[in-house]
């Protein structure tokens, strides 16, 4: 157990912070989902999408990429192209990479995607995405969304091997959790900055205990979500991944409500960066079926269907972490 970043991980984070520096200033043109192709390209050129394929590194380092990049107001797709795809395929796939669970439904990043994992029944197929095959969709979520104009030709794609299909959802849950934790952290930091300087009733807003307590709760949840996501990346088991997604989706709503509340009307404007993170959280709340599906995924790992319950009474020491 070692919860501090090691020197390699610190170097990775520093390099990413340097790379994302020009993308930290919120865009002023009033866009809702500021996808930055340049940031996406820099991540590819810097081989950050290949980080987990390097000797001695793994999915935890890929989750750190998602974590750092997700704090910028400008968007690049990292969850699938940096974390999910290399873990499944053992090679990188130029991003953005979208995931399309149902061909007729909108998917995050599909309007700008170069590739997509498309689910068809039990199969998952990786396909190239042509720009003219996709209809961009605008809406309330701070991601570029799109929908296939017609069902893509999956016969031309690369099917995931059957033994990788369960890993597909597991890794997506890790990516979701890492991305949500990152958005919660960035939104929280922006809010702390605001309530520290904004004065009402003769005090900074952040001096009021009613405000402090809710911000402190969100700090607990953002930190918990981040550690859970990183643990899930490191452990590589389906349960931890599901629990990480559950925790992030369970507290995303509270973060959205509280952090908007304390930024007042300003936080609702497109000129203010808050929505870049909170409206990502809104999208992530419903990703992968939402909290109830993530929770059932966790429940199915701990209490598999058909397995008989342990006969009672059990010894006091049943369920030690040794078997966990």
């Amino acid at each position: 157990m070692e919860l501090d970043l090691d020197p390699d991980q610190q170097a990775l984070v520093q390099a990413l912070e340097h790379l994302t520096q020009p993308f930290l200033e919120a865009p002023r043109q009033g866009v809702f989902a500021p996808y930055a192709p340049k940031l996406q390209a820099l991540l590819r050129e810097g081989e950050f999408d290949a980080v987990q394929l390097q000797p001695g590194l793994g999915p935890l380092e890929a989750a750190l990429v998602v974590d750092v990049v997700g704090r910028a107001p400008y968007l690049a797709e990292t969850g699938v192209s940096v974390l999910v795809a290399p873990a499944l395929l053992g090679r990188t796939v130029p991003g953005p990479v979208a995931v399309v669970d149902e061909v007729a439904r909108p998917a995050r990043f599909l309007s700008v995607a170069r590739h997509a994992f498309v689910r068809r029944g039990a199969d998952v197929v990786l396909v190239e995405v042509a720009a003219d095959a996709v209809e961009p969709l605008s809406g309330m979520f701070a991601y570029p969304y799109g929908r296939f104009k017609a069902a893509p030709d999956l016969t031309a794609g690369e099917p995931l091997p059957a033994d990788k299909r369960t890993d597909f959802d597991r890794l997506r849950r890790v990516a979701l959790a890492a991305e949500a934790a990152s958005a919660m952290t960035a939104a929280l930091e922006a809010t702390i900055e605001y309530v520290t300087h904004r004065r009402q009733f003769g005090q900074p807003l952040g001096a009021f205990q009613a405000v402090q307590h809710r911000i402190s709760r969100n700090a607990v949840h953002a930190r918990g979500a981040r550690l859970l996501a990183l643990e899930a990346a490191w452990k590589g088991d389906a349960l931890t991944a599901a629990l990480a997604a559950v925790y992030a989706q369970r507290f995303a709503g509270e973060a959205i409500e509280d952090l908007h509340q304390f930024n007042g009307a300003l936080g609702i404007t497109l000129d203010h960066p808050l929505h870049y993170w909170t409206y990502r959280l809104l999208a992530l709340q419903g990703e992968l079926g939402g909290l109830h599906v993530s929770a059932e995924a966790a429940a199915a790992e701990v209490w598999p269907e058909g397995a008989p319950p342990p006969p009672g009474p059990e010894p006091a020491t049943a369920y030690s972490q040794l078997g966990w």
Partner: protein
Amino acid sequence: MEFGWSEQQLAFRRKLLDFLDETLPPDWSDIARDGPGSHAQMDYAREFCPKMAQAGLLTRHWPVEYGGEAGATPWEHMILSEEMWSIGDPRSSGYMGANWIAPTIMKYGTPEQKAFHLGKIASGEVLWAQGFSEPSAGSDLASLRTQATRVQGGYVINGSKIWTSYAHSADYVYLLTRTEGAAHAGITIFLVDLKLPGIDIRPINSILGEGEFHEVFFTDVFVPDEARLGEEGRGWAIVRAALHSERIGAARHEMARRTILKAVAELRRRKRFSDPVVRMRAATALALARAARLLVYAVVEGRVKARDPSAETSIARYALYEADKAAAAFVAEFLPESLLDGGDGQLRAAFASGATVGLAAGSAEVQLNLIARDGLSLPMKA
């Protein structure tokens, strides 16, 4: 960053589990029914703690010079806490002695205090109570008023403590008093034999079961100079360090996790675990326990690296509060019969613990204050 256990740590956990399986009586769940402060559990701790000491497990996490094992780290301490607390802690208040009372004696005690107290704690022969809260000093602990007045050869103590767990059977109390000065200045700690004349202990009945709370009255209680821990008036710094340990000393994340698993096992035996809402609630409560575990581990990491205590402790404590509450709520909603006579004692005790977690060791709101001030540097009111 990595999230695995070393072979040595796994072996230590196995050793603890083997010891517990060999040592705990078959009716442990009934003994644990009213929690670690109950008469039944404190009586059992008188048997259990010496056995644990003989097995070399009670204070294995102490520094080597005080009899601990070479190479043991704060991680071993946390493993010990997880395996004990998750089953209702058969050490009863023996955990306080080993967890935070002895370490403050190691750091601030005189050679004589170390010789007298550390050996007794390490052998498991004494149990302690914590004399902190007073009728007018609850969440604002530093406003305490129990007076220690200097006299020839020592001090005379007058005042009262309240909500004191374990007092009915404990041997010693770790007592906070006021000598001179206001608020944080002027607080002095004494290690007081509870059998001294002038000490009157009265139980307070609570909804949580027998033995949980007491009032302790001090009327002209003379204690010698040798009973004072650290310098006069410097007790707050000592108790702050102790509270940082205490806030995560009880591994409530592990109790919450096992409470859920135990409750679900019972629900499955009763064929009441197919409802998706129940399954979702169970999984969500597990997620809270898992997050709390990691936040607690972040504090342990700080100890391993000898970092100063920080708001990380309050973050962990608040997450423990949320996890414990979620587990207790799950039990009450989906397995209410466990809270009635004849139900599982450990589940009942875990539920009761959920009722106090937001109050003990600094209220949940105090933790949020500390996170805001020390962790997030939010502005303070003018």
